[in-house]
């Protein structure tokens, strides 16, 4: 499959420095429209740091991030989220004491308009807006397959359903890019397989580009259209799953030099 030339996100020459540590060193990375791309690398490679730059949690010491033709490098996280970059969390961070549908409606916060006065007075517009938001929330919950838990507290959902709820909550932001941070952590191979199909379904039905950070190689290889590999803060390879699988530097980074030489013999 060929990737679209139109970029929805373009990060150029990103460096992040923590004191004397260069966590990310001059990494350029882009996300084509409606693509599924992955960011992989061994532990400590700088994946999460880079991810946090995209979502606005960290400001890069150098480089800039363009979202469409808008620069988002210095925007606060909630602004970035509301213009269309939604994420999930590696260690599920739902609003546990809110129902599934309330979780989604929190994510719609920036799209809703009611202020203090109209909420107190329950103006017709406010009621209409709330009803539409609730309908959208229910629709998204049905889409990810947990519609029956709409009025259940998030903390009471099973692990797999909580993962789905995280994706649903991110989708409620009406994003153009969905960032998934190790979404299959804690899943068994069968569940991961289901997840791969799910990711493609989300992309096709919701018109979003998806960026994945993932450890599970089989998931990465089967789901991604393009893979970028980071090691010690630097980009060491980028390409299709086939190219990455046979890339010498990637094998070295993951298995160590000795192992890769052994493999070569």
């Amino acid at each position, binding site marked *: 499959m060929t990737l679209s030339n139109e970029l929805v996100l373009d990060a150029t020459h990103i460096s992040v420095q923590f004191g004397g540590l260069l966590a990310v060193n001059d990494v350029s990375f882009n996300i084509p429209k409606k693509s599924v791309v992955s960011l992989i690398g061994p532990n400590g490679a700088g994946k999460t740091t880079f991810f946090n730059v995209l979502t606005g949690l960290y400001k890069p010491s150098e480089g800039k991030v363009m979202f469409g033709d808008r620069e988002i490098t210095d925007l606060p996280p909630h602004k970035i989220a509301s213009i269309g970059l939604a994420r999930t969390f590696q260690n599920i*961070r739902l609003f546990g004491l809110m129902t599934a549908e309330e979780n989604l409606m*929190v994510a719609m916060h920036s799209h809703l308009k009611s202020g*203090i006065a109209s909420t*107190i007075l329950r103006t017709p517009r*406010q009621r209409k807006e709330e009803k539409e938001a609730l309908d959208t929330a229910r629709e998204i919950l049905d889409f990810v397959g947990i519609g*029956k838990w709409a*009025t259940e507290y998030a903390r009471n959902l099973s692990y797999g359903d909580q993962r789905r709820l995280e994706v649903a*909550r*991110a989708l409620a932001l009406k994003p153009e890019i969905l960032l998934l941070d190790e979404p299959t952590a804690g899943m068994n191979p069968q569940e991961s397989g289901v997840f791969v199909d799910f990711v493609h379904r989300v992309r096709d039905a919701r018109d979003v580009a998806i960026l994945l950070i993932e450890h599970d190689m089989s998931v990465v290889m089967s789901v991604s259209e393009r893979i970028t590999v980071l090691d010690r803060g630097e980009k060491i390879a980028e390409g299709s799953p086939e190219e990455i699988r046979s890339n010498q530097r990637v094998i070295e980074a993951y298995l160590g030099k000795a192992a890769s030489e052994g493999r070569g013999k």
Partner: protein
Amino acid sequence: MARAARKAKKAAKQPASHRTWALSYLAVAAVMFVVYQYALPWEGLPLPIYDFLQLWLPPSSVNEALVYVICALGLNIVVGYAGLLDLGYVAFWAIGGYSAGWFMSNFFEQWNVHGLASVATTEPGVHINFWLVLVIGGAVCAFFGVIIGAPTLRLKSDYLALVTLGFGEIIPQIFFNGEDINGFNLSNGTKGITRLDPIPTGVKDLGPFDFGSKFVVFVLLAAIMVFISLQLRRGRLGRAWLAIREDELAASMMGVPLMRTKLASYAVGAVAGGIGGVAFATHVDGVYAERFNFSISIFLLAMVVLGGMGNVWGVILGAFILAWVNSTGLPALGDTFNSQFGTEIDFPSFTFLLFGLVLIFMILFKREGLIPESRLRLVLHEGDADEELKPAHEEEK
């Protein structure tokens, strides 16, 4: 099917419980009103009952408790809903109180301003209608809420508590020493401002000792605060507050602007503090700087914790109980005890020992408060929640 049934059950359950509470609140208020307005002044009332009521539940103690209820409901929005620990809430109470002092008395003799007031236009000073002063007091507090909140709300938990504590000390100190600010008398210092205008109700104007009708005004104000709390809670802003209480980082990643949302809770809480301040000033018919001290902030916080953070009905109960114990319960108990046993123990001096014990007891054994918010009950009693849940899962299969 099962989902619809459960939803119907839930929909039927929740508003009904709020409605039951609201009706109980109004019923209790109505009974109290009848007692104070008609039974107490009635000559045929048996003397022991009269004495009992005057000792254990005098009208002034009920009105004072209602003032605390109004303020505690405001603090509940900040602490209970948004989860921000505010230890300086008394600042807004003071600002509200002085708004009443400035705009409803002869204090500013140099000016002669009248706005629909209940006194003759020949009276010197600024005299504005009580209901308008409520709005003004609320607005002034909202303004100061934003001014104080903007720099402080960037801090987290303990630091926020400390800085709000500071502001809670600074504002009353300004009033305490505000007798001569470059020749301008802002607050009349320790002497305070006294004799406020009566409350115009349309029926008759309420003088300082008309407890029954003032009671109605305070019950109404508290009811308005309850209404505002409940409406906001079930809307866009209330959800954002709860999300921030649950997980601040996740909330900001979901597009919730942290500062603006926290400021909103702080400002709404400040408005309630201001309204409570105006009510308190009319209740004691004056404004005295030394009454606005740190212990009030702690006192209000204890009310919210005792009643049940996040639950308006719990907060009302907590505020009423603690305010009553403070103003009447302990002194009355002391009098009875001392006259019975011939001792001379100063019961009211144990107030804070008692409140400290109450707080420790609540935190150890009943953290969710007397009437808990349903969500909190879920966390604090994990085991129970699991049991309650089982039927719902089975129903689904």
